[in-house]
């Protein structure tokens, strides 16, 4: 055999070997590519800053560099722990995400971790790819609330603002505003300057409204571009109607850094629509304040971002005057909520009958006994043989037992569970109420239960005591489609207690005025629900006012007799004497006025109180399962502290 003939088979062999090696290398590359398919890039708070102890936005940017993938983005945060006085527990925020091939997507969450010592874990999981990222939040928090400024990138910046405030100031574009009001909880003021809000989405606008109503403060600084302030998206917040601009001479009266007047300052000309004019000059309203629920909108007519005002040395102190802090949270709303209170409400027979199969069990027992009675009659009258009666009896018992078992094990016509919502609403002016809802979700059957709430809900947290009992079952928040759903794993006959806090508009307003020896009460019910079982309580006074149907109003005066002894004690005596015909109402009423957890309620120094039950109020929070019953109680109240003897 010649040499080429020997080499030929060897060459024939080498070619498939090369192909095999190339294919093997490619095969090795494929899983490597799949593993690195998703890249996670998080953005914490507002440009990396958030207020400690408050919810904040978390934007997760996902980049898919591989094939299309559908999966779940999950954020794991730690709640409870020493700051909350209990054991720590996990809370998961999830969202279903679809990522087309070679695409980027950003997903917004609002998260509220209690423990910053543990890292935030972000995970994307799908059948095709998994990616994880951990984030240390300790480098991002600020102890004080933030001030956000909204301005166009090209517009003149409010350079003096940073110098005038101790809070962290973060400049945002409109698109960066969160879509959930809860995410703005750590923001004290939002400054709008020289900006169009046309690009504000409906979700963002709703979030802004809710944040304002819940106590947020918006400072709108005027600018030369007055037409921006005439756009409906911005004009709806303004307490004035802007018509133009003109130059004026401005002097900062009353400020610490008062100096010579500045001439030629650009000021917007405007007519006041609502609110209070705080400062005016040359016939122009310069500072106007108006209420927005519990919040406030402050309008400053001068263009602080352009010369000559922007370079004025006293400008920081002038701006500082616009940023008054919001009052502290109303502690009197904190009604007590625990297993004991829940049990008292639950154990009333009327309430029990709403979630047990009373009627069906009664009918089953009656039907079964009736069948036996018929068979006994037939037997007594010898209409049937002994064998036939025995067979019929056995058949009837087996059928009744079997059919009943199938029917009752599927619920027996009773709901699968009950959502109890007990809400205390405190008047927050302007038709708004600040509401705290104590919620109990209980399930008769084992399974994953959920509660969904809309954008109006500022804060919702499962009580940590229940969760700490089962550390393996974290609460899961599912985000998407404009609502958030809390998913809670529940056993049969299990329950979870939750709390929610929000501000909403119910169009009920009540005012109590203390005049010479009498109390004036003015109540207007412009809402959609009747106000029932209304009471007026003051030291030594307890008056049942009855029901106030929707669309009606009261204006009444009641004599306030001479109060002997401590007015606070007399108020408490009057309150304790109030009773309703409904046990759950009694329980919820007394726990809302007598919290027993050391909180000093507003009426403790002696007060005049008006309260009533809002009939058939939808709780704004819904169970995720269709066969759940919702029992909602809403107590509307107004508390007006009475002046003490010294003050009088």
């Amino acid at each position, binding site marked *: 055999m010649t040499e080429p003939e020997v080499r030929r088979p060897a060459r024939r062999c080498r070619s498939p070997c090369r192909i095999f090696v190339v294919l093997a290398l490619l095969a090795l590359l494929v899983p490597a590519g799949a593993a690195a398919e998703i890249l996670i890039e998080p953005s914490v708070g507002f440009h990396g800053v958030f207020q400690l102890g408050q919810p904040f936005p978390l934007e997760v940017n996902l980049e898919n560099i591989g094939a299309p993938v559908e999966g779940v983005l999950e954020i794991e945060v730690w709640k409870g722990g020493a700051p909350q006085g209990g054991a720590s527990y996990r809370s998961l925020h999830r969202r279903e995400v679809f990522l087309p091939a070679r695409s980027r997507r950003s997903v917004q969450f609002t998260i509220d971790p209690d423990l910053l010592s543990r890292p935030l874990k972000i995970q994307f999981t799908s059948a095709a790819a998994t990616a994880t990222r951990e984030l240390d939040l300790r480098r991002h928090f600020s102890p004080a609330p933030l001030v956000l400024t909204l301005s166009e990138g090209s517009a003149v910046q409010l350079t003096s603002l940073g110098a005038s405030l101790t809070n962290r100031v973060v400049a945002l574009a409109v698109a960066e505003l969160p879509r959930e009001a809860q995410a703005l909880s750590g923001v004290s003021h939002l400054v709008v300057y020289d900006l169009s809000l046309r690009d504000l989405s409906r979700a963002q606008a709703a979030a802004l409204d809710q944040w304002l109503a819940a106590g947020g403060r918006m400072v709108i600084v005027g600018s030369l571009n007055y037409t921006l302030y005439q756009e409906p998206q911005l004009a709806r917040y303004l307490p004035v109607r802007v018509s133009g601009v003109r130059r004026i001479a401005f002097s900062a009266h009353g400020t610490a850094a008062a100096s010579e007047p500045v001439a030629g300052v650009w000021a917007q000309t405007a007519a006041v629509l609502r609110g209070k004019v705080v400062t005016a000059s040359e016939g122009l309203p310069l500072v106007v304040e108006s209420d927005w629920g519990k919040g406030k909108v402050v309008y400053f007519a001068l263009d602080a971002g352009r010369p000559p005002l922007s370079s004025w040395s006293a400008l920081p102190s002038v701006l500082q005057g616009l940023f008054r802090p919001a009052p502290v949270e109303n502690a009197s709303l904190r009604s007590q909520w625990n297993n004991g209170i829940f049990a008292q409400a639950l154990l009333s027979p009327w309430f029990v*009958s709403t979630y047990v199969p009373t009627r069906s069990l009664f009918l089953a027992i009656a039907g079964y006994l009736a069948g036996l009675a018929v068979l006994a009659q037939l037997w007594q009258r010898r209409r049937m043989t002994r064998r036939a009666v025995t067979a019929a009896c056995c058949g009837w*018992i087996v059928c009744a*037992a079997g059919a009943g078992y199938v029917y*009752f094990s599927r619920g027996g016509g009773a709901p699968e569970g009950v959502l109890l919502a007990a809400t205390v609403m405190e008047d927050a002016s302007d038709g708004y109420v600040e509401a705290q809802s104590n919620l109990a979700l*209980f399930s008769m059957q084992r399974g994953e239960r959920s509660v969904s709430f809309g954008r109006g809900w500022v804060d919702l947290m499962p009580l940590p005591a229940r969760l700490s009992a089962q550390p393996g079952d974290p609460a899961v928040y599912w985000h998407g489609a404009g609502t958030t759903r809390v998913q809670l794993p529940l056993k049969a*006959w299990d*329950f979870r207690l939750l709390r929610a806090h929000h501000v909403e508009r119910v169009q009920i307003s009540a005012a109590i005025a203390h005049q010479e020896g009498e109390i004036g009460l003015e109540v207007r019910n412009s809402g959609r629900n009747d106000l029932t079982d209304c009471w007026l309580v003051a030291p030594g006074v307890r008056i049942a006012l009855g029901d106030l149907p929707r669309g009606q109003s009261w204006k009444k005066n009641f004599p306030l007799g001479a109060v002997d002894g401590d007015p606070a004690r007399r108020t408490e005596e009057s309150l304790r004497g109030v009773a309703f015909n409904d046990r759950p109402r009694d329980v919820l009423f007394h726990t809302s006025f007598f919290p027993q957890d050391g909180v000093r309620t507003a009426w403790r120094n002696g007060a005049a109180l008006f309260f009533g039950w809002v009939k058939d109020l939808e709780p704004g929070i819904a169970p995720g399962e269709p066969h759940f019953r919702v029992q909602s109680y809403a107590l509307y109240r107004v508390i007006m502290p009475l002046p003490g003897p010294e003050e009088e």
Partner: protein
Amino acid sequence: MNPVLRENLDVLFDQGHVLSIYFYLLALLAPVAFVALYSQSLGDQMWRGSAMLLKVCMTAAVVLIVYFALRLANQEYAPERFKPLASWLHERRRGVGIVARGRLASLLVHIACLVLLTAPFLIWAGAISHTPLPRLVAMLALIPVYAFCYGVWGLVTSVLYERERETREFAARLLVFLVVVAALAVYLPLNPVVYVLGVLGQEELEPLSIAGSRWSADTIHFSFHFVLGSCGLIAHRRVLKHVLERGHR
């Protein structure tokens, strides 16, 4: 068919005397089952809701069935219609075995009927309180065991004091009462109600320590009832033999 059993069935079923027992049983159990629907309690970790329903129904069913089984075994219903033992043993010359088996079979038939009648209530209660089916079946199986173990002593007293009706009734009740009290005093899970409630509540029953060795509550409970039932059976045969021998003398 065993003649003693046939006589028992004729008297109690054909003449309808058993209907009053069934009436009382159902008339007592039905309201209990309905009212128990409203028995709620809130534990430290779990709201029990209507989960109490089966516990209450089982307790009532155990007590009622044991009570009625004891009375039936003790021939407290239409006693004048039953032939005296002497008639079976001496005049008709039936053996002790036949009489004992007949009386025992009668007791078992009545227990079966009582359990069958109450079964729908217990099954519905189990379904409403979401009790797992195996546990429900086990509970249903326990009732006839207890009814037999305590009821067999009714057979004994009915032979011992055959002609003294009031003494017979008193003796049967006293005997069961003493057994229950003694069991409660010695070891709580010996009591059927305590045991049933413990099992339904998925509680860990305390084991019993005897001379350094630990015995589980299940072992002790079932051993006790096995001994109780066996002693009853032996005593029943012995007293029947005693009656036979006395007749011969």
